[in-house]
């Protein structure tokens, strides 16, 4: 490649607009969130620095419950996405008539406006007239109507199911690509040696798609941790806080109650967790790339 002073300048000139944009819209707000977390910023004109007071205030029993809830919520959602995604990818890879159609039919939850898909789930969860409660009653699995979003436990799981629903298509298509990248010779050799379909899945498919599963679960972890739309539309964090995750909690404090300083402190805690995930992600992908080369 031609290296010269002018191409050095040219390269950075090409990057400059994008860097500038991200600095103003993402990096500066990030720094500003840290600064605001040490102030009592609100709708009032005057803002004072208050030291660690916001952090003292938020670290209590409730906030620790919210953190735990966020982690369990994220954990179950990611787990289900990975399991269902693997299941779907293996099925979509099977050479049966109609698989191209099936692949297309996997995509709608991913492509249509998220909020609209969530509205539809809102109706499905309706206790009196919704489909899930209706079908459960029809098949005699429950006695009376189940209002999924009206009580803590069911609402918690209902929001997870909807989050899984939105995440599964991308995971599935990504896993499918990973499965298709596995050399056919391996399967042919195993088949010649008399390995059953299950053995081939267990000994070839699963180990060779493991890097994809690891990468995807990390990406999914970050995306799920940030999940806002689903919970906000379905329950707004209720009933009585049973679906309040850290993102929802921050939004309620900052935008709902206009406590910018305290909201910023909560956002900073989220950022710390996200940075940890981010570092873990980069380390894991680097290690995967390294073992790939070896």
């Amino acid at each position, binding site marked *: 490649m031609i290296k010269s002073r002018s191409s050095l300048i040219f390269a950075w000139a090409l990057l400059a607009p994008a860097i500038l944009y991200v600095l103003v819209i993402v990096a500066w707000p990030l720094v500003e*969130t840290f600064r605001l977390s040490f102030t009592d910023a609100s709708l009032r004109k005057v803002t004072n620095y208050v030291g660690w007071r916001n952090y003292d205030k938020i670290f209590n029993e409730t906030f620790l419950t919210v953190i735990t809830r966020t982690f369990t919520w994220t954990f179950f959602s990611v787990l289900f996405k990975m399991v269902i995604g693997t299941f779907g990818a293996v099925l979509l890879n099977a050479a049966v008539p109609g698989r191209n159609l099936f692949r297309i039919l996997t995509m709608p939850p991913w492509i249509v406006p998220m909020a609209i898909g969530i509205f539809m789930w809102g109706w499905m969860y309706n206790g009196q007239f919704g489909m899930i409660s209706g079908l459960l009653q029809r098949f005699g699995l429950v006695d009376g109507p189940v209002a999924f979003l009206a009580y803590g436990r069911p609402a918690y799981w209902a929001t997870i199911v909807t989050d899984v629903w939105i995440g599964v298509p991308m995971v599935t298509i990504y896993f499918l690509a990973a499965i298709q990248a596995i050399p056919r010779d391996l*399967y042919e050799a195993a088949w010649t040696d008399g390995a059953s379909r299950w053995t081939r899945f267990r000994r070839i498919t699963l180990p060779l798609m493991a890097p994809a599963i690891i990468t995807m679960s990390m990406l999914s972890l970050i995306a799920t941790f*940030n999940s806002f739309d689903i919970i906000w539309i379905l329950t707004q964090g209720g009933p009585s806080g049973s679906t309040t995750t850290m993102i929802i909690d921050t939004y309620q404090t900052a935008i709902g109650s206009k406590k910018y300083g305290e909201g910023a402190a909560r956002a900073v805690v989220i950022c710390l967790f996200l940075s940890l995930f981010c570092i873990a992600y980069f380390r894991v992908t680097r290690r995967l790339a390294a073992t790939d080369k070896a």
Partner: protein
Amino acid sequence: MAFKSRDTRAMIDRYRWWEVVAIYAGMFCFLFFLLSPFIEGFLVSLKPLAQLFSSPYRFWPENGTFAAYVSMWETVPGFARYVFNSFLISTISTCIVLLLVVPAAYAFARFDYRGMGLVLGGFLAVSMFSGAVLLIPLFRLMRTMGLLNTYFAMIIPGAAFLIPSAIWLLRTYMMRIPTELNEAAYMDGASQFYTFRRVILPIARPGIIVVAIVTFIGAYSQQFIFALTFNSKTEYMPLPIGLYAYFGKQEVIWNELMAASFVGIAPALVIIFFLQRYLVGGLTAGAVKQ
């Protein structure tokens, strides 16, 4: 040998009857999970309101009617405007993203100066922070710039979060363009900018189109939090927020809301159908390790 290998291939793909049944049964469950909200939503849009709010639950509509598709225009008077806003916001966001990302992706694909790896990592890290975390400073920024309750309050922050995946996707595509082209252009005395503009861009066009489609879909499907927080004017609301106002009411007219939702997502469904081949490649290439 070639024949033998092809035989093996055919044998591996041959299923016993119960395996075929199992595959289709599994596929049915999988797709039912993914499509049930749409199926149910569509059936709801066909049911008269009285039938919706009656027990016991009935899956299929009786005397299904498309009346809701007509009456919804009166119930949701801003509907056409919301759809227009959604398209406008997505289109402008896509244009901004492309203007920023095409040069940047080329730089990442062609040059490797000190610090660029770090910058690329920085871009990728952006996608890990959601808008929700940065909402407070962004809100204050928009207020200072006088952009609250305008299209730009939704476009400018939204576009930033579409940049990382677009850069990654286009960089991957541009790395496949042979460097010999640059060298040949250099030999012919073309300037760096001329080479980028006249040699690389025309070749990269298919990749740019895929990135544009993926970005547009991202912009169209993720309009929520910024529009919810930074805009309160009905005339600028994108479709999800416009419908959200009806969703939150005490007496939701579900059949009309579902009819409106279906008209709203129709463009997305059409796009999936016609562009699915590009989409699958485009949506996954960004994540697959090169």
